[in-house]
C-alpha cells in the first residue's frame, strides 16, 4: 500500500505541480518516506531536509494529525495507507 505525501504550495513546482504524491513500496518510517521522495523529486527533498539529513528548522512533518517531533522524529512509524503532511511553521512575517 502506498503512502500519500501532501505537498505545500511553494514546493509543488519541484514536484511536477502535484499537491499530493503517492510514495509506493510501503515506507515503514518517515525517514524511508523521505528517501522515497528524494528518489523521485530530489529538489523538493532538499527544501525539506538539510545537507545534514535534518529537517529544516521551520518545517513540520505530521503523520495524520500527529507532529513527528512527539512520535519518534524521522523514525516515526507509518501505518499502511497513512498520510504524511509537510507543514511550514507559522513563524516569520
Amino acid at each position: 500500500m502506498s503512502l500519500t505525501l501532501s505537498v505545500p504550495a511553494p514546493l509543488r513546482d519541484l514536484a511536477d505541480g502535484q499537491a499530493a504524491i503517492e510514495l509506493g513500496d510501503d515506507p515503514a518510517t518517515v525517514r524511508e518516506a523521505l528517501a522515497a521522495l528524494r528518489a523521485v523529486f530530489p529538489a523538493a527533498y532538499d527544501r525539506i531536509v538539510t545537507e545534514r539529513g535534518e529537517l529544516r528548522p521551520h518545517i513540520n512533518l505530521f503523520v495524520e494529525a500527529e507532529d513527528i517531533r512527539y512520535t519518534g522524529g524521522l523514525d516515526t512509524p507509518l501505518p499502511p495507507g497513512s498520510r504524511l503532511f509537510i507543514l511550514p511553521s507559522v513563524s516569520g512575517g
Partner: protein
Amino acid sequence: MPDTPAGLRAREGDILLLVGTTKGAFLLRSDPSRDGWEVDGPHFPGEEVYALALDQRAGRHALWAAPGNPFYGTTLRRSDDFGASWSNGEDRPVRFPEESELALKRIWQIRPGRPEDPERLFLGVEPSCLFESRDGGESWTPVGGFLYHEHRERWTPGAGGMCMHTILTDPAASERMLVAISTGGVYRTDDGGATWQARNQGVRAEFLPDKHPEFGQCVHKVAHHPSRPERLFLQNHWGLYRSDDWGDSWHDVANGVPSDFGFCMAVHPHDPETAYIVPLESDGFRCTPGASLRVYRTRDAGGSWEALTEGLPQHGAYETVLRDSLDVDSAAPAGVYFGTRSGKLYASSDEGDSWTLVRDGLPPVVCVKAAVLHAA
C-alpha cells in the same frame, strides 16, 4: 502577491542598482544622467535576498541572486535578461559535503572573480565558508582550506549569524585572496586557498576579555580599490581601520567620526584614497548618531572624515545601514548609493556631495550593488 516583475530594458551605459531586501529584490535602472530611476520588483517576493551581483566579465550580463527563507532554505539564481526570467533554484546547488556536518543557512556574498579568470566566482556563506565555482557558476564546492580551518570551532555567530561577508581578490596575484567573517575576523590566503592565516593584528575585539586576539574579531566589512589592492579599509564592530600591507597590520583611522561603530564601507571607484561609511551610535543603539543621517567620506585614506548631509534628513532620522547596503558605481563623477533598514534608498550622482531619496517604503534593505552596464 505582487505582479510578476517584467525585468529591466537596460542599455550600454545605463546605471543598474540591485537592491536586496528581507522581502525580495528590486532592480533599478537609470540612464547615465542618473536623474530618474525605473524600478522593477519585487523579485522573489517574500524571500530575503542578502546577496546580489552583476557579472559583466567576458561579455556577460549575468545577474546573480540568492533568495531564501527560513522554511525552505537558500538557493542561487541567475538571470541573463535583467530579471525577466530567473534560473530554477535547484540548478546550481550550494551544499556542504556530508562529512563536514554543516548545512547552508544563507548566502551573504556573491563575488565574480578576477577579470582574467571569467569562469571563476565565489560565494561567502553562513555558516562561515567560502565556496568557489570554476565553471561560470554552474557548480560550486567549498574551499577546503577554509572549510576545515583549525579555527572553525572557535568562530561564533554575531547578531546577524556566522557569516562570510567580504571576499576580495588581488588583481596582481591570482593566489592571494582576503575574506572577512563575523565573528572570526580577517583571513588571507597566499596560496590559492590551500591555507588561510588570520590577519587581525591591531583590530580590537571590544566584546572579548582579550581585546587583541589573533582571531575572533567581529569585522563588519572590508573594502579596497583594485589599483591599490594592498590598502584595505575595515569597518569593525567598534573600530575603523586601514591596512597598507594586505592586512598584515592595521591602524586606527577613526579621525573625526561621531562613532567608530558601523557596518558598511565602500571605496571610491577611481580614487583609492576616498572611502565612505555610515557610522552608527553604538552596538546597543544601532542607529545614526544624533538621529541625523550622515554619510562620512574621507579623501585622504582615513586621515580625516567629512560629514555629507545635503539631501539627507538631519532630524528624527533613526536609521541603520547594514554591511552590504552601501555601494558605488564606476561612472564619472561616481555615484554612491545606500539603503536603510527602514526601506529608504538614497543616491548621490556627485560622489556624495548631495543626495536624493530614490525610493521609500521598501522592505528593510540588506544589500545594494551598483554598476555601469558595459557592452555585451
